[in-house]
């Protein structure tokens, strides 16, 4: 029996106006992602991979087409609905970490917890637990300016997990990290997928990273150009770039 996809894009287009030029970032994209999958989206610059992630993450809306998440079409959501969607269903990890610089690592996670407004939770304790999950419990009181790039990205992952989202989206999570730091971050994401069953959608221009995903979706000119299934995804320690 075929299970319903957790994320489904059907004939999605996205067009931007850049000055006097129209940019067609997505041209009728069709893509399905199952619950618990680890999908890597790769492609050259301008292929539409970040746009795809932004649409799934509710940071942007399609120009046309259907975008179903857990069976609900979010393409027609208004701003309030998108805000709630981002708050409750998505964990976003950015290339530039995007930690709030005036908050400590722990407070960055607490911020996301307060937004999610979990009842009966000790926000401080849960933040600590999440940081521990990514191996940074002892750095909870440090500000981003006192953390390395890799540490900042792991704090960002902990923050993304604060809302216990079913879907984690990562946009070039290792783009600003050296190899060793990048490995650490990917390891955390793999663990979240394998141990907690979270759906992970990772966008990268680095095709090597695709080898740790269960499926690698190649985008070109705003459409899926190829899909490869990795029958035996590699461990993070087995890849080098």
């Amino acid at each position, binding site marked *: 029996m075929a299970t319903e996809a957790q994320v489904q894009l059907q004939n999605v287009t996205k067009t931007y106006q850049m000055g006097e030029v129209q940019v067609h970032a997505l041209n009728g994209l069709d893509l399905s992602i199952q619950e618990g999958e680890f999908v890597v989206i790769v492609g050259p610059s301008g292929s539409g991979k970040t746009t795809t992630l932004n649409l799934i993450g509710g940071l942007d809306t399609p120009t046309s087409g259907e975008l179903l998440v857990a069976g609900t079409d979010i393409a027609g959501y208004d701003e309030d609905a998108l805000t709630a969607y981002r*708050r409750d269903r998505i964990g976003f990890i950015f290339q*530039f970490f995007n930690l709030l610089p005036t908050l400590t690592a722990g407070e960055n996670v607490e911020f996301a917890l307060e937004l999610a407004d979990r009842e009966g939770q000790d926000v401080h304790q849960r933040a600590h637990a999440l940081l521990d999950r990514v191996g940074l419990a002892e750095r909870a009181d440090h500000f981003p300016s006192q953390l390395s790039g890799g540490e900042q990205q792991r704090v960002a992952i902990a923050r993304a997990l604060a809302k216990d989202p079913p879907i984690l989206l990562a946009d070039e999570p290792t783009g600003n990290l050296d190899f060793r730091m990048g490995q650490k971050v990917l390891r955390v994401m793999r663990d979240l997928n394998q141990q907690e069953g979270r759906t992970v959608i990772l966008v990268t221009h680095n095709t090597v990273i695709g080898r740790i995903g269960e499926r690698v979706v190649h985008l070109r000119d705003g459409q899926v150009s190829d899909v490869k299934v990795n029958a035996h995804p590699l461990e993070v320690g087995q890849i080098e770039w």
Partner: protein
Amino acid sequence: MKKINLKLWRDIRQQKWQFTALVVVILVGVLSYGGMMGMIDDVEASLDRTLDELRFQDFVVTLQDTAPESVLQDVAGVDNVQAVTGRLVMDVGLDISEDNQARARLVGMPATAQPPVNQLYVQEGRYLQEGDGLVAVVDHHLAEYYGYGPGTVLHPIVNGEPLDVEIVGLAVSPEYLMAVASAENVLPLPSGFTVLFMPQAEVQGLFGAEGAINELNVRLVNRSPGEVERAISQVEKALGGVQIRSVVERADNPSYSLLMLDLEGGREMMGMVPTMFLIIAAMSIYVLINRMVQAQRPQIGVLKALGYSRWAVMRYYLLYSGLIAVIGSILGFGLSYPVGQAFAQAYAAEFGLPFVTATFHLAAGLEAVGITLVVALLAGFFPAWSSARTAPAEAMRFDPSVALVKGSVPWLERALGLVFRLRTGTKIALRNLFRNRRRTLTTLLGFVFAFVVLLTCWAMFDGMSYMMEVQFEQTDRWDLQAIFSQPQPYTVMEQIRGWTGVETVEPVVDFPVTIKSGSESHDAFLVALAPDSELHGFQLPRSKKPAQVLGPGQVLLSPSMSDNWGVETGDQVTLQTPLGDLQVVVDTSNAEVMSPGVYANLDWVQAELAGGQDLFNGLWLQVDLARQKDVRRMLYQLPGMASVDLKEEIAAGWQSLMGLYYVMMGMFLLFALVISAAVIFNTMTVNVLEREREIATMRALGQSRSGLQAMITVENLLVGLLALVPGLAIGVASTYSLFQVFSASADFYLPFYIAPLTYGIVVLLIFGTALLSQVPAMRRVNRMDLAEATKVMA
């Protein structure tokens, strides 16, 4: 166009609203410095010119009784006397209508030509001429009020009978630029007081004083203070046995002194404004340029890598700040003349100055422009220098993933954290205050400035309202005040007491005196009354009763008299009166607010100066208010009645005078709100621009727009709260200082008073403006492209 200049132009276009906001701040600063100060100078110059053209007196000698015109020759022969005019001047009532009478001063003038001192500027109609009978050139104030003109017949009441006097001309007189009857009551009352300049012979005939005068107007060659005093002394000697009631110098002319008080207050008010504008402008420019430099670091790196010199890079940012200053200054400078001129014209018209001097204050304007340019360039210099010093590689290595902001927990958060559990949203707002201290300081200064100006302006309303209440509710408890031109027996008072509508009548003796203390002497009005008067409320401290301080040989002064004359409670002074000198002991604790008199015991004064006779020359009356106008009419019909004033008309006159102040205060209020709005707008916009990525991230995490707006609002209002105490404290000090200016005259004592509600109004107005000013920044937050903004470099 060189490409770097093209970049400059495009950067300005991109930040047009911030650029404009700063141009506005500069414009207002230069305008206020050049235009407003220039306006005050112009009004003063217009006043001087008017007084000169119309041959205004240097002093006036009022005689106790009349004297023959021949005394003029004796005075004309005194050294330093350029010219002297002798006149018969009498105050009477004027019938306006059945229930409206005014006070009219009949002044005898030469019929053939204008007098050599105190000439008239005829606005409409003509001056007097040979053959004129009962005609008059009338002071323009009352005529304009009631719409009179040449041909209108007025009805002054002389010896109880109304006369027909035709107006042949309307004029401005240098003695009555404001319609003030006497120093006793310095309220301009255009509806209740006028001057009829009539042929001298007619006036003399009306009062049976043919060939007699009771006033000499003297104009000197040399006006230096020492020479004026010497001339007065010699004129008094030349008059020999003629009894002198008073000698009043030019500066003490009631109309002139009121005008000068008005101008001084305006100058004081305007003095503090430009300085604050410039400080705020400087800090705002610094914030803007600094932010630009931070945002454009990679571009700076590229420029330097391409071969642009340090100076070329600096020049770019200096040009930016210089352009703000130049455009704002040119506009402000350009506007300063027409705006200053318009205000000067309006001001001069309000006071009826016929000769208006409106000059282009090049020096003041250039000074303002020069100061502004220096300040703006200095403000832009430091961030520009920082930009030029950055090595190209370092600048281009700018990595948005590296957190540039050093986080820390400020003391304020630690203190609050001891009491409250703070949510992260609150922590963000608190920490953002200390994140860029100079920027926060700029916003703080904007708030402080607004608090100071608004509180000062509003407090002036309070002070003046309080002054009115003290004067007209607590001090003057009468409804009518009547002054006779000659002493009257008590039988007249008894007659009046029997009139329908008259409830209480109290006699007073009221005449000008000179207080001599050591080598100093000061002119004042003595008011002798019963210590237990029901119709006058002394403003004494609780520990003193009127009976204690108004015994025989005692006089009561006000604190403003004490400050101005240098006399203290317990001092012995000489009271020089037309009927002889009295030695008295003063008490200076009577805190009356407007035109306080020198109070003395009526019985004692009658005993000392009138041989114990029950005589009075003034009455205070409490009446049935429905009948007060009837009573006034009947009073004016009494022989020898010089003036009858209704308290409600005096109070209304003050209110209308305050109208002018309110307009000026309103203007300053607006200035303050515009400046604070511009500063807050600028800072908020910079804050949002700089934190676009953070804000977008918060929204990406699921923070609602309203939640973000609340966070930004809290941050904004926190700065306002920090500014509250210093702003209000400085505002109170500034208000006190302004009150002191208005209390510098012996005639006014403006009690320092700020209504509690005023603080609330000021705070609400400023915070309301702050909330409105952040609307553009909020719109930016709401319309943010999250996908782009989460990647943007700060």
